[in-house]
C-alpha cells in the first residue's frame, strides 16, 4: 500500500548572499494503521518548499492553520526528526548532513521563538536559568562574565535584572514573550524562526513585541523567518513573503509585490479576507468555499483547484510548477504559463 516517496531534486550550490537556502524540502509524517502498525499513508505536511533567505532580511510565511507553516520552520531547524527529501543549506552547510556533534555546534546560530509563551517556558526554572542554561552549555561567554551577560541580554529585551530570580508564572503574556526572545537572543544567533510570536498577545502588547523584534534585528543584524497567520503583522515586519497552501509555497516574492499585486488566486482570496479597520471601506471579498483539504490525501493536480474560482480542466490534472513571473516574484499556478 505504501507509496514510494520520490527523492528527485536538483541540488543547489551555496550562494553567499543567502543565509538560508531551502530547496524542494519535503517532510511527510507516516500514518500507521492495521494490525501490525504498517505505514498506510503519509501526511504531506511540507511538500516541496523552495526559497532563499537573504542575510539581514525577514521573510514572512503566511497561510491557514494546517498548511504546514510551523512544520516548515521546524524542519529547517532539524527539530522535526529527519527530512523526507530536499536540501536545507544554512551558510552553505546542509543541515541534514551534519553529525550530531556538528549540529550541536551549529544550534546556537539558529534559534526559534515559539508561539505560546505560556507553555514554552519551564515553570520550574527561574528566568535567569531559562535564559542562561544554553549560554553556559555552549560556552558563549567566560564564566566570570556570565552574570553581566545575562543582565545585558535581559536589558536588551526590556526586562529588568531583578526579574532573574522570578518564575514564569509571575509574568504577563508580553513579558513572557520577551523572556522567550531573550532566551533565543542570548546565544548570539544569526537566524531566528519566529513561530507566531504575537498571535497569543493583545493588540497593544503585540505592537511592543513587534517593535522589539525589529530593533533587535537592526542591532544584531539578525535574519528572521516570521511565521504568522496575521497578514497585517506580516506586511509590517517582512521584506519578503511566502504564501503556503497545503504544504506548498504557492507564491513568494517581495512584500510590496505580493501585497500590491497578488497573483495566485489563493493569495488574492486570503488578502481580501483581511478585515480593514475602516467602516467606510468597500468590501470586495472573495470568500473561499469550504475548508482546507486533508494533507494526507491532497487533491490531484493543483492542490488548490477544489476551492479555486478560476480553476480550469488543466488544474485538475496537472500540478503546476514554480515560475518567476516578475523578477523575484514566484508563483505556482497554471494561469501564468506563457
Amino acid at each position: 500500500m505504501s507509496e514510494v516517496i520520490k527523492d528527485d531534486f536538483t541540488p543547489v550550490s551555496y550562494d553567499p548572499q543567502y543565509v538560508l537556502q531551502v530547496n524542494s524540502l519535503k517532510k511527510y509524517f507516516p500514518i500507521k494503521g492495521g494490525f501490525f502498525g504498517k505505514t498506510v499513508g503519509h501526511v504531506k505536511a511540507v511538500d516541496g518548499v523552495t526559497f532563499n533567505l537573504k542575510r539581514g532580511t525577514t521573510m514572512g510565511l503566511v497561510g491557514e492553520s494546517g498548511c504546514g507553516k510551523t512544520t516548515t520552520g521546524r524542519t529547517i531547524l532539524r527539530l522535526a526528526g529527519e527530512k523526507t527529501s530536499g536540501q536545507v543549506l544554512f551558510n552553505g552547510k546542509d543541515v541534514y548532513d551534519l553529525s550530531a556533534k556538528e549540529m550541536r555546534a551549529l544550534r546556537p546560530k539558529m534559534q526559534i521563538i515559539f508561539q505560546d509563551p505560556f507553555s514554552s517556558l519551564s515553570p520550574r526554572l527561574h528566568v535567569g536559568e531559562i535564559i542562561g542554561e544554553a549560554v553556559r552549555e555552549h560556552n558563549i561567554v567566560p564564566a566570570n562574565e556570565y552574570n553581566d551577560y545575562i543582565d545585558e541580554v535581559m536589558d536588551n529585551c526590556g526586562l529588568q535584572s531583578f526579574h532573574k530570580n522570578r518564575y514564569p508564572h509571575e509574568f504577563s503574556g508580553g513579558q513572557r514573550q520577551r523572556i522567550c526572545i531573550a532566551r533565543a537572543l542570548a546565544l548570539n544567533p544569526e537566524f531566528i524562526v519566529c513561530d507566531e510570536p504575537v498571535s497569543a498577545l493583545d493588540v497593544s502588547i503585540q505592537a511592543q513585541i513587534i517593535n522589539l523584534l525589529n530593533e533587535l534585528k537592526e542591532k544584531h543584524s539578525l535574519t528572521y523567518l516570521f511565521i504568522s497567520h496575521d497578514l497585517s503583522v506580516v506586511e509590517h515586519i517582512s521584506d519578503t513573503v511566502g504564501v503556503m497552501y497545503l504544504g506548498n509555497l504557492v507564491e513568494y516574492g517581495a512584500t510590496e509585490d505580493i501585497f500590491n499585486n497578488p497573483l495566485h488566486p489563493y493569495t488574492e482570496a486570503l488578502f481580501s479576507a483581511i478585515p480593514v479597520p475602516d467602516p467606510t471601506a468597500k468590501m470586495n471579498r472573495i470568500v473561499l468555499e469550504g475548508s482546507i483539504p486533508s494533507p494526507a490525501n491532497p487533491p490531484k493536480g493543483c492542490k488548490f483547484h477544489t476551492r479555486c474560482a478560476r480553476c480550469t480542466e488543466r488544474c485538475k490534472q496537472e500540478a503546476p510548477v514554480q515560475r518567476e513571473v516578475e523578477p523575484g516574484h514566484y508563483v505556482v499556478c497554471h494561469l501564468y504559463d506563457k
Partner: protein
Amino acid sequence: MAKKNNDGYLSAAETRRISRQNRKTTNELEKKRKRKNVPESEYLTTMKDPGNAVEFEDLHTYFFTDVGTVHSVDGISFDVPLGKTVGVVGESGCGKSVTSLSLMQLLQRPQGQIVSGSIRLNLGNGKAYDITKTPEKVMQKLRGNFISMIFQEPMTALNPVFRIGEQINEVIALHDDEGKSDESIKERTIELLEMVGIANSEGVYKMYPHELSGGMRQRVMIAMALACSPKIIIADEPTTALDVTIQAQILDLLRNLKDKINSSIMFITHDLGVIAEMADYVVVMYAGRVVEKGTALEIFAHPSHPYTIGLMASKPVVGKKAEKLYSIPGKVPNPVNMPDYCYFKDRCEMCVSRCSGEYPGMIKLSDTHYVSCYRYYDEKEGK
C-alpha cells in the same frame, strides 16, 4: 482595601480577614438571590427607550477573591438598540466578557456578583425585566429564547461525547414551547444546520465534534445559539480562534443571519478590523469602564479617548506602511488596587493637569458619541 507589602504578597492573617469579609458579603447577596417565589413586580421594569433591546445602566460586577475585590465591571452604561450590532472592544481583562456573562447571569458564583446597577432586557410589548434581579427559574426561560451566546472556543464549547444533532436537539427541546415531537425537533435542527451553511446537514447531524473543522464547529455553535430565534445574540470573540478565510465566512454568515431573524448582536472582540466591518455602534472598554462609545463611523473617524487612539495606532494595517508601530506605554493597573484618578492616566501621553483629580465622567461630543476624558471638558462645559 487590603494592605500590601512591596512585593504584592499578603500575610496569612490579612488573607483570612479578606476571605471572612468576602464570605459575609457574598452570603448576603446569595441569600437575596436564592429566595423562592419572588413576585414578578420586583424585577419588572420599563425600558428607557423602547427602541433598545438591552440597556446596561451603571452596572457593577465584582469578584470577591482572596487577594481583594476585583472590580471587573465598574459602572458601565450602554444600550444595544433593536436590530443593530454593538461592538465591544478592549484588551483582555478589561471586563468585556464579564459584561456579557452578567447579562446571561452565568457569572462564577458566589465569588462573582452583580453588586449594583441594572440590566434591562426588552421582552417586547412594553415589558422589560431587570436581569440583575431576575430569579434563576425565570432566567432559564430567558436564556436561549431571548438571549443566547456564541462562545469563543468552538473546540471546547461543544461536548465531545455527544453527536452534533443531539446537542442542538437538546436546546430546542428544552426551550421554545412544550409539546414537540422528536421528528419535528430533528427537522428544525437540520433546518438550522442548513441555515448556517452546512451543506451535508444530514451527515453532520450524526457526527461528533472532533470530526468537524474549526469553522464548521463555529457554525454549529451559531446554529445552537440561533435555535430559538433569540432577540439578542452575544458573540464573545467568535472568530478569534479561526483563520482569516474562515473568519470571513463566519462574519458573512452572522451578518446575513442577523437580518434574517432580525435580532441584535453584542459583538465582543479585540480586533478593530472585525469591529469596523460588523458593528453599527462601538463601545471601548478599559479596566472595567467604558471610556468611549459612539457609532462605528464616529469612533473610527474621530477616535477621541487617548486609549482608543493608541489602540488604533498600535494595529498594523495592510497597505499603510509605518516605520515603527505605536505602542501604549506601561500596562493595565492592578485590578485589585485601582487608582482613584483616571485609570488610563499612568499610560496616557496627553494628560492635562486635571487628570489627577477624580475619575472623569462621560462627556457628550455628539448625540451618540460619548467620551470619558478631561481633555474635552473645557470645550464642552468649562466645568
